[in-house]
């Protein structure tokens, strides 16, 4: 097992950057030095209350200035609402870094990052890291429902990424969903044999994975799961394994959150 810490950190900033979307930063030398792209943290919100009860998982979104970690999150329920109420100097307890993280492609490989909505959170950190090792420009497809949700465009451009954007309502970028871009790309550039990294809604991931499997491409998807412990203890975050007799279920917190696309039984998803 990798090294895991519990640390109380003091929030440096916590600000809204898009529709219901917030960016939070804090410093931690230990976590920053251990963290790999695709790993996540468990954040404890209930210092003064037992509701919400459980910690909430958030991907490590970015590491900056050596020791500043950032979380990118969307308000979807009471935990994330409480998180958005925290202000500079408030402290939170985090556990991490957790999970396996992405397998980094080789320097000569073509890499394609596909993010749906908040899926961009871990892929940003991945892009930061890939940039350091990759010879070819990274390609990224980014999909949102509508222009108000679109975030991080400038920051991603600063990373010198080949970026394409879709919105479902066409209010910004190409009209459609992010997998449309993949369709097109595979028609055009299948021969480049890209390594695909994807994070986003489960149905998007299913589509990406199935396309990758059909095209015989290496593809890593970052999954979510309902987590209690995040340490492989509770067996709550199960996801059905594809044809693995020894292990009918993987656990997202330990075996994942990143899975190679053929590991998962996509039928039941």
């Amino acid at each position, binding site marked *: 097992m990798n090294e895991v*810490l519990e640390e109380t950190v003091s929030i440096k900033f916590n600000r809204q950057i898009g529709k219901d979307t917030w960016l939070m930063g804090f410093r931690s030398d230990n976590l920053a030095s251990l963290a790999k792209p695709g790993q996540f943290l468990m954040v*404890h919100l209930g210092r003064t209350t*037992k509701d919400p009860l459980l910690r909430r998982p958030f991907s490590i979104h970015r590491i900056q200035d050596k020791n500043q970690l950032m979380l990118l999150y969307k308000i979807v329920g009471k935990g994330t609402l409480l998180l958005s109420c925290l202000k500079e100097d408030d402290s939170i307890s985090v556990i991490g870094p957790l999970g396996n993280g992405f397998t980094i492609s080789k320097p000569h490989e073509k890499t394609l990052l596909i993010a749906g909505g908040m899926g961009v959170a871990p892929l940003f950190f991945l892009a930061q890291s890939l940039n350091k090792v990759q010879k070819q420009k990274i390609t990224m497809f980014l999909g949102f429902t509508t222009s108000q949700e679109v975030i991080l465009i400038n920051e991603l451009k600063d990373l010198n990424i080949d970026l394409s954007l879709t919105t479902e309502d066409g209010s910004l970028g190409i009209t459609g969903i992010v997998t449309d871009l993949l369709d097109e790309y595979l028609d055009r550039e299948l021969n480049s044999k890209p390594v695909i990294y994807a994070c986003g809604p489960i149905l998007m991931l299913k589509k990406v994975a199935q396309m990758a499997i059909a095209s015989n491409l290496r593809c890593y998807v970052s999954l979510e799961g309902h987590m*209690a412990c995040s340490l492989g203890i509770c067996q709550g*975050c199960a996801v059905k394994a594809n044809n693995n007799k020894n292990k009918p*279920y993987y656990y997202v917190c330990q075996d994942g959150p990143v899975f190679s696309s053929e590991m998962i039984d996509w039928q039941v998803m």
Partner: protein
Amino acid sequence: MVSQPDLSVNIGGLKIKNPVITASGTFGYGNELIPFYDPSLLGVIIVKGLSIQPMPGNPPPRIIETPCGLLNAIGLANIGIETFIEEKLPSLVKIKTPIITNIYGHSIKEYAEMAKRIESVDRIAAIEINISCPNVEKGGMAFGTDPDAAARVTDQVVKNTTKPVIVKLTPNVTDVSIIAKAVESAGAQAISVTNTFLGMAVDVATRQPKLTNIIGGLSGPAIKPMALYLVHKVVTNVKIPVIGVGGIMDYQDALEFIIVGASAIQVGTANFINPKTAIDIVRDLTDYCLKEKVSNINQIIGSLKTNGENYEKSGDKKNK
């Protein structure tokens, strides 16, 4: 210098250094929380419920948060008793804390077989029988809700082992004291109270149950008042030691159970929220005893006062 208080208690013949135990299913196979503290500091470790054959568990989602509660339908996913003994147990060699296996069978015969298998394993200090798992359709529920069935399971396990046998009760019964008395008569050396409460949640958007298994077991702070009541009811009806479980998050929760009459307590769901909960409780109980000038924790067990009276007069004797 002040001398350290004696936190040791006796659970049906098993003397343990302090009354803090990690609950089955919430502490893995014993060493998963080593990044956070040395498990040797715990009173007892109870490992994940084991069955004869490995069990895959239920399809996800298996857990859902409810107000101050956790609803789980893990479905007793486990690697099976044999793999546990062969692959997991050896890695616990450095841990200086008794290990208790929690066992679950589909039939009385399976329980008896597991007891036999465990008998030969020195490292396992005692057996906790789960007759209360609400997540598995067949069998499980029935044993824990019927005094005769509960007694028969207990009897068969007791007959097949020389180790202390603890029976873990289900709260989903009309009168828990009837079941408690039945397993006591059948030879149980201690009783754990309580396993999870049956519950359910619905996703309003999809109109589907939030758990694929539809029904789950509720744990966490939400159940604490009910668990405490059940412990109260059991301690006033049996003579063997009772282990309190349900919603314990800190040493004050632990003390509530101990005051009511629990000789030890188990920490479950709290391990997920603050992995150091159990060890914090050991530390805080020590501090509490020092502050309150309690030299031996047995002085607190069953010290509940009602109308100025010491309610559970027999509390102390249970640990002698």
